[in-house]
């Protein structure tokens, strides 16, 4: 497990640094954003984005953090990292021919696969949680206060959303030998989902509805997770990991 964690260390750290840098920049920009929000709203071309701006106007800095950190930063960057980690998990080994030596050790395939999944999951979630934990301190720099437990609740939901993306890609990787094809398919899927999200009449069909500003504001204001959605995301991960284990057990190196 330690070697699996070490293998993803640099990418995990880079992900955290970029996520934190985006958050710092966004937080420091908040006073100016708040001052010019009315003017900015008139420039927004899409209804969905205008709704988002309305929520920020209504709820203030917390909605701004949800938009900048969770919806933009974590969804885009975290989603990318989740796909990169997962697409290479097994398919990457097969492509470079190292699957045989990976499997040839006296360790069960279940253990090998779960270790790899857990290491990736760790590096996907920890940067989200740690960067979210810095929000109250960053807020104090711009005279804003945040409730840390509520923010962490949002971060937990964000992690489950990213883990669902990670696990779907992981399942594809367990069955395939072409990581790039998996990556491109997931990228196209993400672009398609985002396009759906941006069209007001179709936005409810998009997976990004499960991790958007409205939902995070609901968690932050209500103090509890939207259990139906959260459990569904967790169930997607569990089902995908179980399916990956089944596929991997029969896999020929």
């Amino acid at each position, binding site marked *: 497990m330690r070697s699996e964690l070490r293998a993803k260390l640099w990418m995990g750290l880079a992900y955290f640094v970029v996520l934190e840098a985006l958050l710092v920049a966004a937080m420091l920009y908040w006073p100016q954003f708040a001052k010019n929000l009315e003017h900015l709203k008139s420039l927004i071309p899409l209804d969905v984005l205008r709704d988002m701006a309305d929520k920020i106007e209504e709820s203030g800095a917390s909605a701004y953090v949800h938009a900048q950190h969770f919806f933009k930063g974590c969804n885009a960057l975290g989603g990318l990292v989740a796909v990169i980690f997962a697409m290479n998990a097994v398919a990457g080994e097969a492509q470079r*021919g190292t699957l045989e*030596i990976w*499997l*040839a*050790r*006296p360790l*069960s395939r*279940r253990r090998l696969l779960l270790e790899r999944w857990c290491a990736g999951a760790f590096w996907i979630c920890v940067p989200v949680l740690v960067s979210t934990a810095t929000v109250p301190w960053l807020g104090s720099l711009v005279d804003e206060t945040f409730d840390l437990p509520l923010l962490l609740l949002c971060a937990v939901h964000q992690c489950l959303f990213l883990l669902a993306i990670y696990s779907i890609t992981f399942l594809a990787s367990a069955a395939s030998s072409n990581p790039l094809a998996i990556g491109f398919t997931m990228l196209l899927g993400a672009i398609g989902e985002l396009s759906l999200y941006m069209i007001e009449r179709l936005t409810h069909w998009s997976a990004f509805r499960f991790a958007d500003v409205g939902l995070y504001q609901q968690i932050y204001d209500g103090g509890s997770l939207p259990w139906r959605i959260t459990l569904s995301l967790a169930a997607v991960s569990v089902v995908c990991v179980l399916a990956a284990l089944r596929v991997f057990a029969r896999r*020929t*190196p």
Partner: protein
Amino acid sequence: MNASTPTTGTLRASGLVRRFGTKTALAGVDLEAGPGGVIGLLGPNGSGKSTLLRILYGLVRPDAGSVELDGAPLEGDGLAIRQRASYAPGEIALYGELTGEKHLAFLLRGRGREALEKANSTARELGLPLERRVRGYSHGMKRQLLLSAALAPSVRVRILDEPSEGLDPAKRGEVLALLEREKAAGTTILLSSHHLGEIDRICDRLVFLHQGKKLADETRERVLERARRLVRVSFDAAPEERVLAGLPGVARLRLEGARAAIELESDDPREFLAALASERRLSAPRAIEYGALSLPDLLRELYGVEAL
């Protein structure tokens, strides 16, 4: 592995079938090995050698048949077998970013510290620069690294897919010396090889595979004896098979146009040669070859297998 499990190094496989899509890689192969001894798997490319070794090590599931190593059956993901054996793959693909030392640690995870120390010592004995990244290794060095790892665990069965492929003659000699040491220690070794010197030097038993089927399974002595009893005769025109088969001392006959490969019943060809010379229904032979044949010649003549 349970410490009380008897580990004699006895491997039994029966009825192994494996298909990849429409291609049948193995078509019902039986094999028994050990305790002790070196078994060489021979056959042309695509004959099923690597698939058989992977199945015996629990890396590939057979479509039919069973494998048992010291009483532990091949089931599930083959963990019970992998715990009781070690393996060196035929295809070389390593993690180039790791140093030789770290790579050995990776390969030997789950084998204990003692195995790692032994592998490091073997690799140094072979002159591998373990502090260097593996991406800078030559093909032969990578092969030796894999072999160092495969010879390290304290197990009674080692499965080696072309262990000396890509090595220069000096290194091959060193590797064979290591294998001889293992053999002397009573380890059961299964290896596939295209290298005849290697087979001749260390194998006790030879198993010939062709198109996924076992053509023969004989001791090295028996194969060499058959080689000594083989006579190749070339005629100007195809001889009558019936006449040739009726000559005294002929045990087996394979006719290919005007060429005949004849396996005699004994080491002494004189009676046969005299009868051949005096048989009026046959044209005078153009060439007669007799004596110990090379292994590829033997395979071609006895089994019709063209190349190793």
